[in-house]
């Protein structure tokens, strides 16, 4: 398997978020919504580790990554010019279960990256897809939000927003919209901060709707070898590797108390 991907383009879409397009035919062919890749920008010892990113979409030979700059690895990534080769391996991990008719997708922040891939794939297959997208505030995100809204319309995806500061959509946490949305849903897929996922999992459980969450954890290898990326599991305790048993896990398999 080729371990390199060429940067085709990289567009800032506001709020430190970038849409990265990579030429990575083998990965693009094998990926499915929920899987991720490891990307490494530096050739030297700093930063040492690769960074995990969900696949945001695959178009022919191209792989799309939607990411936000949060530290030096993503900062370095955001400065990479088209034409550069990056170390890139994947697709890694499992994918979402897309086999449903009325999925409810709940995204917090950059959690939208993998969920949007899932949303488009399911809408294409004819499912009635609802996406709830929560942000702290919409400030700075207008470009990204416009793109998503366009794609939602084109793809017949129902897209609703919540913001904590009320700058867009309903004011409050994204989970506020869930009780109503859950009434029609036959599956919940969620990605976002742990506290949000915990709340989503518990609402879905109450409503007795199957729920999958995509988790994040610090990763070294991404391939199941280092055992660095674990989250606590139920039943029976122990741990699950986010890179291997995840990143998508049935909400009931995660020990939310110990997370």
């Amino acid at each position, binding site marked *: 398997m080729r371990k390199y991907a060429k940067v085709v383009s990289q567009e800032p879409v506001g709020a430190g978020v970038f849409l990265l397009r990579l030429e990575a035919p083998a990965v693009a062919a094998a990926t499915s919504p929920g899987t991720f890749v490891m990307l490494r920008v530096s050739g030297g010892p*700093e930063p040492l*580790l690769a960074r995990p990113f969900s696949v945001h979409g695959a178009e022919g030979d191209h792989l799309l990554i939607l990411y936000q700059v949060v530290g030096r690895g993503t900062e370095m990534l955001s400065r990479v010019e088209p034409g550069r080769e990056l170390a890139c*391996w994947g697709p890694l991990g499992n994918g979402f279960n897309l086999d449903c008719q009325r999925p409810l997708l709940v995204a917090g922040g950059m959690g939208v990256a993998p969920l949007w891939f899932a949303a488009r794939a399911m809408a294409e297959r004819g499912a009635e897809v609802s996406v709830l997208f929560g942000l702290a505030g919409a400030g700075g995100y207008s470009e990204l939000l416009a793109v998503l809204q366009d794609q939602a319309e084109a793809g017949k995806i129902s897209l609703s927003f919540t913001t904590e500061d009320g700058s867009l959509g309903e004011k409050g946490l994204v989970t506020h919209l869930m009780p109503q949305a859950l009434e029609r849903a036959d599956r919940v897929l969620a990605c976002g901060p742990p506290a949000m996922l915990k709340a989503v999992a518990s609402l879905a459980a109450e409503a007795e709707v199957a729920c999958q969450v995509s988790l994040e954890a610090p990763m070294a290898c991404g*391939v199941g070898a*280092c055992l660095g*990326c674990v*989250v606590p599991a139920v039943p029976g305790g122990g741990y699950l590797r986010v890179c291997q048993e995840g990143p998508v896990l049935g909400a009931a398999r995660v020990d939310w108390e110990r997370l």
Partner: protein
Amino acid sequence: MGTKVKTAVKVGSLELANPVLAASGTFGYGREFAKYLDLNRLGGVVTKGLSLEPRDGNPPPRIVETAAGMLNAIGLANVGAEVFLEEKLPFLAALDCKVVVNLYAEGIDQFAGLAERLRGAEGIDALEINVSCPNVKGGGVAFGVDPISVAAVTRAVRENSDLPVWVKLTPNVTDPVPIALAAQKAGAEALSLINTIMGMAIDARRRTPRLANVMGGLSGPAIKPVGLRMVHLVSRAVDIPVVGLGGIMTGEDAAEYLLAGATAVQVGTASFGDPSSCQRVADELAQFCAQEGVADVNELVGALKT
């Protein structure tokens, strides 16, 4: 490659096709990396530290990146001897490269029992005793820092196995030489060093350690100078081969370890930044030899001019 460099080395009684092994704990059970390199092109694979019973390991977070390095506190999570023998070993046994099983236990009897449990298993070429894992209280450090304990553990494994025994030393000691000599005297066929250096990372804003276990083991390029020194010191003091590791990222790094006195090397953390690192390092080492007019990689071993 097209080079004619002889790359085979002998680590005690074990012949490796080339001097590069994958280091324990950074390469899983081999299969995890099968997509990214040709396992048959490695000198060997050292498997994740194995205990008699399965271990869950430490709570997360277990890893954190540091300057040119990382800390880990995995806590020796592993599948246990039974699952290893049934599910992991057959894949490894079918490979051309050598398979070294890294052993972890919390007491001398447990080490003996573990060696006994693995006796006769098809496809294991050597055992590497981890007396140096810094993460688990009760075992780990306590063994590795004391020559008498190291000798006792080495003897216990030897007496319960027909396989060559390697002892993996910790750098977290004032002087590794007495410990190395004790392992040699107790029958070790080779010494691997270094394991990780104890360290700690802090999240200043949250005021918490970055590892749930508070302390962890430092690995990666940051520690290469420490590994080179210890390999140099120990290899001059003992009569058995030394397997060098710590921060090897390139073929030239591997050459440095050989020059310092190692007969073979292991590549650990590098596999995380590039999953084909082990094969790449082996290839680069052969290229290095070709460039430097070294016909046989063994010419490098201990060839440092001091």
